[in-house]
């Protein structure tokens, strides 16, 4: 029996993975604040976004919204290590889910921030949608965070659009959306 690619792509194992499909990939040609994947087919079991980004700013959070929903229909928890402390936080009834680091340094133009965002059972119309992500950045100086985030979108709608935003992503940043069958 095939092992779901979402598992293969999460942690470990020596696996044969023929069920992990690239749906769409965006490499930014110019500075962009929001990246959106739309018209996502509902034919997969799970989705995964992988990103490699550069940013011009400091103090950034990357956050996700689904289907253009900007209401307070999201909740999240985060666990962060910033080299000197471990920090946990949680927020309910808010308008986004964080899916990227909470850095406060300045090395974003040369040290990529990367992340993996998993959305399981995204097309199920009888359940809310749970999201998990891991992300991190390290610039060999003052900018270093490793983050684990969970999120909930309080909607039973199938996810057909995903937006990830921050004040600005630099040109050359890459976002890939995968489907797991």
């Amino acid at each position: 029996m095939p092992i779901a690619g979402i598992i293969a792509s999460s942690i470990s194992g020596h696996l044969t993975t023929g069920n992990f499909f690239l749906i769409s990939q965006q490499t930014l040609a110019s500075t962009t604040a929001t990246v959106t994947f739309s018209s996502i087919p509902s034919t997969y079991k799970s989705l995964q976004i992988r990103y490699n980004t550069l940013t011009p700013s400091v103090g950034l959070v990357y956050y996700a919204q689904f289907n253009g929903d900007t209401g307070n229909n999201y909740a999240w928890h985060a666990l962060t290590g910033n080299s000197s402390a471990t920090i946990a936080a949680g927020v309910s009834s808010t308008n986004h889910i964080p899916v990227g680091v909470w850095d406060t340094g300045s090395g974003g133009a040369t040290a990529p921030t990367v992340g993996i965002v998993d959305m399981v059972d995204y097309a199920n119309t009888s359940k809310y949608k749970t999201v998990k992500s891991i992300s991190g950045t390290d610039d060999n100086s003052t900018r270093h965070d490793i983050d684990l985030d969970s999120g909930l979108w309080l909607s039973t709608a199938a996810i057909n659009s995903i937006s990830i935003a921050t004040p600005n992503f630099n040109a050359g940043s890459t976002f890939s959306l995968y489907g797991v069958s």
Partner: protein
Amino acid sequence: MATATFVPIATQTLGSAAASITFSSIPGTYTDLRLVLTCTTSVSDTVALQFNSDTATNYSYTLIQGTGAVANSGNNTSATSAYIGSGAPTSTTVPGMYSIDVFSYAGSTNKTLLVNAAIDQNGSGDVTCAVCLWRSTSAITAVKLLLTGGNNFATGTIATLFGI
């Protein structure tokens, strides 16, 4: 349906103890790499990684770790290798599991990777997530797994490299 990806590029299973495991001639045709290591060692040691035979101080990392009831975070700068995990188990029946994602490995920016490490020895061990930076704009064509204390990976250690 879109084209399938997440392809095993190569697997190495050690037939005898070895100080390192190297994947070379990595094609530049994927977006990301995933390296999965299941290992034991003869002496508990720290697992690390180097790219393209670079042994200079071009690596840094930040981690978050749970060890027993304690959570901690730490970092290192200008290191000679990327941190993958501490305390590889010495029992031949209790492997440590390490998963390393290397993003945009063939691109022209510096390279960032994410690490998950699971090491449990029924009373000791840890769970670790880390982010590492290799300060090089070269495409990654070779990956070397090693133990920073100079010890050997034990027979039966398995490493698999995937392209995504």
